[in-house]
Every structure is written in C-alpha cells, then in structure tokens.
C-alpha cells in the first residue's frame, strides 16, 4: 500500500464534519481499515467511495455503525445475487434456440 494513496483521518473528519469516534466504530466493525503512518491514522483512497456511502447512511438516515454494517452486508448479498442472476441468465441463453 503506497503512502501517497492514504488519506489522513483528521482531514476527513474536517472534510465531512464527522467525529473521529465514527471512524473508530467503522474500524471496530471491520467496515474500514485504518492504518497508522507516522502516528497519523489514515484510510486508503480506494475505500473513500464506500466510506462516503457509510457517512451518507449515517447522516441522512441516522444509522448507527451496526445499522451500516447490516446494510453493507445486505448490499453485498444483493450484489452477489445480481452476479449469480447474470450468470444464470447467460447459462439459459445456451438453451434458448433449442
């Protein structure tokens, strides 16, 4: 993991107007991975899109970390089911013209 791709959490707290404890909670639930670089806690920039989604769910819907965890698990399930559906759909095409 390159340091240049890491974003310091204190900047994110200011940026999104959110408390550090929120990120700690996400980290405790395994929803994000916080890394320490020279005594500064950071998150990888590839995880920003997911993190923003978590912040929106927290701010817009007042979901706590447990709720966000549940939502992410369900969204993962939907994603997997959609992939399975796509594969099944493609398998069916083999038999369409028979």
């Amino acid at each position, binding site marked *: 993991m390159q340091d240049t791709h890491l974003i310091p959490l204190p900047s994110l707290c200011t*940026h999104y107007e959110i408390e550090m404890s929120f990120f700690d909670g996400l980290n405790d639930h395994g929803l994000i991975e916080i890394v320490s670089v020279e005594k500064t806690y950071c998150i990888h920039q590839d995880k920003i899109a997911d993190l923003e*989604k978590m912040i929106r769910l927290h701010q*817009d*819907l007042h979901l706590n970390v447990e709720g966000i965890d549940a939502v992410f698990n369900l*969204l993962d399930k939907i994603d997997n089911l959609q992939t399975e559906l*796509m594969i099944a759909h*493609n398998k069916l095409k083999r038999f369409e013209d028979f």
Partner: protein
Amino acid sequence: MAFIDYYKILGVDKNATKSDIKKAYRKMARKYHPDLNPNDKEAELKFKQANEANEVLSNDENRKKYDKYGENWQHGEAYEQAQQQQRQSQQQRQYQEGQQFEGFGEGEYSDFFESMFGGGFRQSRSNVKFRGQDFNANLELNLRDVYTTEKRVLTVNGKNIRLTIPAGVQDGQVIKIKGKGGPGINGGPHGDLLIEFKIVNTTEFKRDGSNLYKTVTLSLYKAVLGGDIMVDTFDGKVKLKLKPLTQNGTQVKLSGKGFPKYKKDGQFGDLYITYNVELPKKLSDKEKELFEELAKLQ
C-alpha cells in the same frame, strides 16, 4: 415549471406537525435512499423529492412562504394584490394534478424549488464536499469483439474516454471506470463511470462463462463408420477423429478451445461439441435394399 405539492410527496396533510413531517421524511428517506437502491433512477428521484419537500416543510419560514404562495410562486408578491381582487381560485385551477412531479432533472433540486427558494436558502446548507454522481452507460458489443482485449474510445457526456475492454467480458457485466463520473459537489472528487456490457451473439457457438458449446451434425454413415472430420472452433478449424458407432448426442470436450477467461491472460475455457446424427431424408431403391439386408443381419 410546475407546482410541486410537497405535502403530497411526503404523504402528510397541510396541518401536519413538524414531527409528522420529520417522521414521514425519514420513512421515505429509508425507503428510497440512493445508497440502498443502487442504479434505481425512480428511487433516486423520489429521494430527491422527499429531500426537497423536507427542506421546505421542516423550515418554519419556508413552509410559511410555501403555504402562502406555493401554487402561485411565479407571481410572488403580485399575488398579494391579485388575492385582494379575488382572482386566487381562477389562478389555482391553472395547475393540473398530473404536473406535480415534473421539474426534477439531474440537479439536486427541482426548478420549482430553485425558483422559489433560490440561492439564499441553499447557503444555509453545509459546505461539505461530496463525491460526484456515478454515471451509467451501456455498451453493445459482438461476441467476436470480446474474444480479444480491445481498446475503444467512448464518448460519455461529451468527453472522450479511452477504455480497455478485457477479453472474456460477459453479457450484463458492469465495469467501473474510476473518476469518470459526475463532478463532485463543492469540489469533491468525481464519481465513477459504470459501463454495462451487452454482448450480442450471432455466432453458431453458445457461451456459458468461458466455455463454448457447439452442435455438429453428422451423417448416419459417418457416425456408423467413424473417420476424420473438420470442426470450426471460435478461432480456426481442428481435425477430430470420430470413433465408429458414434451415438447421437455424444459430447466431446476440446480443452482450451473455448472463450478467453476474463482477466486471466492466455487462459481459455473449453469447447464442447455435441454430435447430432442426421438420418437420411430420402433413400434410393438400392439404399433401401441394402438397409433391408442390414436389418436382416440384426
């Protein structure tokens, strides 16, 4: 621009308390939040509508303004005079029920909202930077196009995007191009571009993932006596040895002659050949005689 009935959007009546409005908004937000309804344009629109309705109705000053001028927002203060002249009811009838949800475009707010509450109200919103919207695009390709990795230039929202399409991409598969979506809000990062592939198959091969399937028709004599046959694969021809007395429906596997495996360079699936033995449709007298001879031998 059409009038938008914010009370109707939230499903509350005009006498609803702040608490009723908050409750109704939260219920709608949980149901239609775009993060809970990915790629659902209708949910996104309903969320925008609920958000806007909440912003107006949960703010005393704006609710008062909306209640006072709502249906006559275009006339603003002039409406006050018009009201005195008792023309209110006539004007109200100009707005039809069916127009209520028009005016919501790609932006965050409807034209109605922008016109009525404008910039002043928006300044009260936080200055938080947000990542831009994800863009969705569809790309139709022929099965032959995705047999090899290809570079293409796509034009999305007037911008040219150079794209490498890996061999083996599947029908319905979505590829994410980072940072090629909508611009961020308040200077936030760009969203992503999500491209869904539609793979059109006009070949004689059926595809299941990286495996290909093909039916080869054999004459009765070839199936009985066996011999060499030439079979078309996806990228050429192969010579196959056919065993004598090959049964109808026999399947053979040609390892590595299928479709490229997605993002696994140099790896291919298998090609499955199913033999379909075709009986003669006409027999000459001589052939019939010979078949009868054969039948007697059984």
